[in-house]
């Protein structure tokens, strides 16, 4: 199929859900209104860390219009998205861990009544030490924020080594040792999280929610509410933006579900903006130290990375995030030896988790800025340095990631040409500069969160006498266009138009499981499943039509809503007739397709994070204009080239690339999820500095530059019609490219994001005072690293196992659907 000329795939088309979105017909979770529906509000902690001594809800319960008041007593069972971090309860039971942690819920006739009743709940707290920074958490193991984790307030520490990195660095001509910091930031979806829960006609629980991961919500509801999964239906409503912020099961979802069960009435909640900042699960603040050895001609001999993640108050995806800060360094450039040590600590702040790029943008920032420093020291053009060390296709990296197609060199060459790099880099007048950076990202995580042998994505097709096709898939439309991809893949194979296919998605009652809209997995996994289901349907129909028309099945063509003889195109039937012929012959027509990623060659503990069926690649050049007096930064233009494999719908692909540039510039220049610690002698308070969409600064249209986007197409055999991901990768090069451009413009390094005018002025002042022309973190604190796992790289004969790893007892249960161990093994 994939080498055939396509009619729909590759065409820039209006997305199938575009009409509903621009006419306001899309029903988001908060648009759902049901008869007898009640409204819920959550009481959230106003203290950062405390034991709950007493909660008195009697006044709230007595308030007119209140139907139910819930506390942690109603939620004895913990949950969490990763099996290794089931550390959340829908409402806090014994302690609160950050300002915003939910402690009680009121369900009332309307929102205002619920809000009034919240004020009538009395909570007595016994304050505990406030952990405001990773340094606090490393310094004080007691009291612990959680009673689990690797040590004290350390949630997770890992240490992995691939080859003799110390010897490789010692033998290098130059060693670069740099510390970088990446500030935390949040997703900022326009749609605030909302959920409605109800009991349906036959007594089963239904939850509509703005979630990216209905399957994980489904599992969490079953576990935490002790309700059989088969009696729960989760419907993921279209998300008004997700970016990773709606990938965890959330307190409010469990609370309305429980309330609906208890009251047998529909219950709704829509979070306000402040609460969305508290749900967070966004970008971890990461301090990192890169020690990299290079030869005088620019080959990397070894890389030694340490990362320290400020995890906030709960686990969330944090164990995976920790591994991700050290996973993808090797898939862009040749790195023969590599050591990664990562540490995530708990602090009394909203939990961090997966935001677009999940754990990789922070360390990609350090890696790409350090490469710029290496090129400068060696006197090499940074584009040439990268071109020289780009990873070759079809190789296994030091940490056993399988690189397949890699269009990175073409991406670099494209942005170099487009931006006039050769004529302009290091040659522009003071105050103007160009910066280059590259990146890579997964096209879907190779391992599932709940480790089992089941497919990651399933598609079912229903074909009937109308000639219409319905495609069912658990994938979730979060604005990225997954419904369009589903419809396009099916329509392409069956030779019909996208409008002939109806997508039914994200509904656990109706659709086969898809793991969710995260890790850039949907196009690749759902797309492959859809192609398989459609090909099976096509084969059924082809057999029937071939026999009816008396021509060999190989000669049949499906196109233009017809099934016809390729040697005599006038001879054939309409698609609708073809379906009827097939239905008459074999009965009701339904087919399925599914997708499971290939097994990863990485078999060491921690090797579950990083493998992917294939990787996307991006290169970007950013132009900046920096005022040497004020440090004021303007970005007039960005050139970006993305190795997409194949663009299924170029309109959507370009939208993702441009949206990534937008989000990347926000992270590079202004966005910060930061906190205020009041003077400890006066207060324990630790609060989000500005949980508001006005004061949390994100760029406006006026702040956006011109973007020149190039799509590099070299179909990857692993992808549907050759497609790779585009939702996350193009974000990553923007932040380091801005930093590198600032250096080209003005000769100072800002080794952290966001890069703000005051930091540039400080660096310029340091330069004037004869100090290093730099603003950034000074050092990396001591971390109690565990024993390093030694894995021999493939070219030294390694088999993907660690040489010193304790032998694990096989714990797999017979029932593959039951959680055995996590894909993220701890």
């Amino acid at each position, binding site marked *: 199929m994939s080498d055939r000329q396509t009619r729909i795939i590759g065409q820039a088309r209006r997305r199938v859900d575009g009409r509903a979105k621009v006419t306001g017909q899309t029903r988001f979770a908060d648009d759902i209104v049901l008869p007898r529906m009640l409204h819920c509000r959550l009481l959230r902690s106003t203290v950062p860390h405390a034991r709950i001594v007493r909660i008195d809800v009697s006044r709230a319960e007595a308030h007119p219009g209140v139907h139910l008041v819930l506390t942690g007593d109603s939620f004895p069972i913990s949950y969490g998205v990763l099996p290794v971090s089931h550390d959340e309860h829908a409402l806090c039971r014994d302690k609160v861990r950050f300002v915003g942690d939910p402690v009680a819920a009121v369900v009332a006739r309307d929102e205002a009544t619920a*809000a009034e009743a919240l004020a009538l709940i009395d909570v007595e707290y016994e304050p505990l030490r406030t952990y405001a920074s990773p340094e606090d958490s490393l310094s004080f193991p007691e009291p612990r924020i959680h009673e689990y984790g690797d040590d004290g307030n350390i949630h997770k520490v890992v240490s992995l080594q691939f080859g003799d990195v110390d010897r490789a660095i010692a033998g290098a001509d130059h060693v670069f040792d740099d510390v970088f910091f990446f500030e935390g930031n949040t997703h900022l979806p326009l749609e605030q999280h909302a959920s409605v829960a109800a009991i349906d006609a036959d007594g089963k629980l239904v939850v509509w929610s703005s979630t990216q991961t209905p399957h994980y919500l489904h599992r969490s509801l079953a576990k935490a509410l002790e309700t059989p999964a088969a009696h729960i239906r989760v419907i993921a409503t279209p998300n008004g933006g997700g970016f990773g912020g709606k990938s965890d099961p959330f307190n409010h979802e469990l609370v309305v579900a429980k309330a609906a069960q208890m009251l047998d009435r529909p219950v709704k909640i829509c979070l306000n903006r*402040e609460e969305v900042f508290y749900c967070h699960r966004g970008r971890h603040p990461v301090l990192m130290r890169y020690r990299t050895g290079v030869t005088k001609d620019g080959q990397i001999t070894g890389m030694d990375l340490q990362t320290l993640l400020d995890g906030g108050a709960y686990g969330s995806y944090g164990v995976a995030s920790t591994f991700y800060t050290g996973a993808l360094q090797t898939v862009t450039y040749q790195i023969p030896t590599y050591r990664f040590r990562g540490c995530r600590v708990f602090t009394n702040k909203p939990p961090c988790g997966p935001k677009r790029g999940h754990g990789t943008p922070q360390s990609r920032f350090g890696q790409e800025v350090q490469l710029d420093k290496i090129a400068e020291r060696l006197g090499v053009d940074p584009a040439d340095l990268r071109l020289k060390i780009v990873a070759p296709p079809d190789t296994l990296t030091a940490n056993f990631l399988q690189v397949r197609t890699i269009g990175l060199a073409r991406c670099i060459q494209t942005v170099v040409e487009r931006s006039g790099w050769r004529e302009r880099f290091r040659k522009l007048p003071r105050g103007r500069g160009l910066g280059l950076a590259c990146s890579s990202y997964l096209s879907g995580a190779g391992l599932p969160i709940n480790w089992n042998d089941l497919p990651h994505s399933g598609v079912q097709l229903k074909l009937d006498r109308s000639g219409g096709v319905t495609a069912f898939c658990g994938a979730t439309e979060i604005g990225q266009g997954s419904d369009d991809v589903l419809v396009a893949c099916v329509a392409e194979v069956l030779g019909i138009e996208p409008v002939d296919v109806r997508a039914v998605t994200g509904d656990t009652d109706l659709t086969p499981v898809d793991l969710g809209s995260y890790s850039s997995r949907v196009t690749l996994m759902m797309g492959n499943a859809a192609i398989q289901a459609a090909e099976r349907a096509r084969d059924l129909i082809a057999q029937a039509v071939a026999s009816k028309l008396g021509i060999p099945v190989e000669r049949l063509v499906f196109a233009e809503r017809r099934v016809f003889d390729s040697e005599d195109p006038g001879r054939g039937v309409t698609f609708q007739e073809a379906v009827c012929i097939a239905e008459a012959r074999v009965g009701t027509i339904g087919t399925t397709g599914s997708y499971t990623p290939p097994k990863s060659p990485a078999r060491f503990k921690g090797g579950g994070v990083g493998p992917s069926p294939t990787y996307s690649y991006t290169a970007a050049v950013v132009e900046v204009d920096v005022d040497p007096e004020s440090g004021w930064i303007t970005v007039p233009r960005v050139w970006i080239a993305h190795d997409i494999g194949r663009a299924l719908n170029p309109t959507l692909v370009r939208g993702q690339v441009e949206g990534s540039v937008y989000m990347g510039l926000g992270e590079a220049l202004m966005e910060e999820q930061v906190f205020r610690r*009041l003077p400890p002698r006066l207060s324990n308070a630790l609060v989000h500095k500005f949980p508001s969409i006005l004061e949390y600064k994100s760029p406006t249209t006026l*702040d956006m530059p011109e973007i020149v986007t190039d799509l590099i197409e070299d179909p990857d055999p692993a992808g549907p019609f050759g497609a790779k991901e585009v939702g996350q990768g193009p974000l990553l090069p923007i932040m380091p490219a801005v930093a590198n451009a600032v250096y080209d413009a003005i000769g100072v390094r800002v080794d952290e994001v966001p890069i703000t005018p005051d930091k540039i*002025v400080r660096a310029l002042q340091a330069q004037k005072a004869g100090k290093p022309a730099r603003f950034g973190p000074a050092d990396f604190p001591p971390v109690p690293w565990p024993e390093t796992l030694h894995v021999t790289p493939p070219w030294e004969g390694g088999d993907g196992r660690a040489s010193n790893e304790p032998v694990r007892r096989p714990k797999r249960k017979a029932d593959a659907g039951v959680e055995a161990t996590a894909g993220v093994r701890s």
Partner: protein
Amino acid sequence: MMRLPSFRYVAPRTVEEAAKWMSGSPGEAMVLAGGTDLLPNMKRRQQTPSMLVALRHVDALRALRVGGGLSAGAGITLTELVRDARVRAMCPGLWQAAAQVATPQLRNMATLGGNLCLDTRCTYYDQTHEWRKAIGFCMKRDGETCWVATSSPKCLAVSSTDTAPMLQALGATVRLVSAAGERSVAVGDLYRNDGMEYLTRRADEILVDVRIPDQEGRRSAYWKLRRRGSFDFPVASAAVSARLEGDTVADVSIVLGAVASRPLASDKARRLLVGQRLTGEAIAAAADAAYEIAKPMDNTDFELVWRKRMVKTLVTCALRDVRGDDVGELRQRLARQTLQMIA
């Protein structure tokens, strides 16, 4: 953010009637004009008036007269002000100030009077009730401490109006009407450098109009610093109004915004410039003088030392603008727009 608390709403049709409502329950009633400042504040419980006296049906507040100066009703929206070619021709600085307030949608609602009376702002104060509870509240509402500087005896919330510094520089006066009568106050005297008692307007007084003296022979400019090209309140600004004779400064007024609890005029900068030619050196000296009086605190966007430093840049830009330099490219860079598209 919570929803609005309940309140009584009255919609008088005359200033007299409105003044009567305001005097009826002193301290309990507040004036509602565009609502873009007050209503969000009420949702956050920063203000909890029991009665709102709405001015939108008081036609007398919507007059705009030009000739021998300018008289603008307080109820004129910022969009109306910005779209009036006469305002732009006569007071380019006022046009620049109004055009840079918030967003087009907010300017469609927000009024000139509302912008002048804009509540002072602070990142410890412009927060929801729950957030403020988490810090034990602050001096400006429900608490005792000013968290910006815990030893400060007074509130340090920031004057964040764009039009006030410009109108002060233009020598404008406002008319305040209450049931007891009316009075005129220079814009410079409308404010106090106190984050809580930032207005000299009494609680029962209604600001009804703004009068700007004849601008014949005068030039003006307003330069605003904010993170983004839209939405944001100023973190520092400079308003300049000047009368030039040839290239010599006959008279000038330089007023800073968003670096104290009120607009701050720099007398020293004025003294340094009057009688001088507007050379680069003279402008730099005036910018240095203005810089001295700026007292930004850590309660807005951006780092405070840098904000103070930027006062020099803003004053320099405004004086160059008044001098007649082509500052379009500078404006584009700093404001992320040329402002031309707003007209």
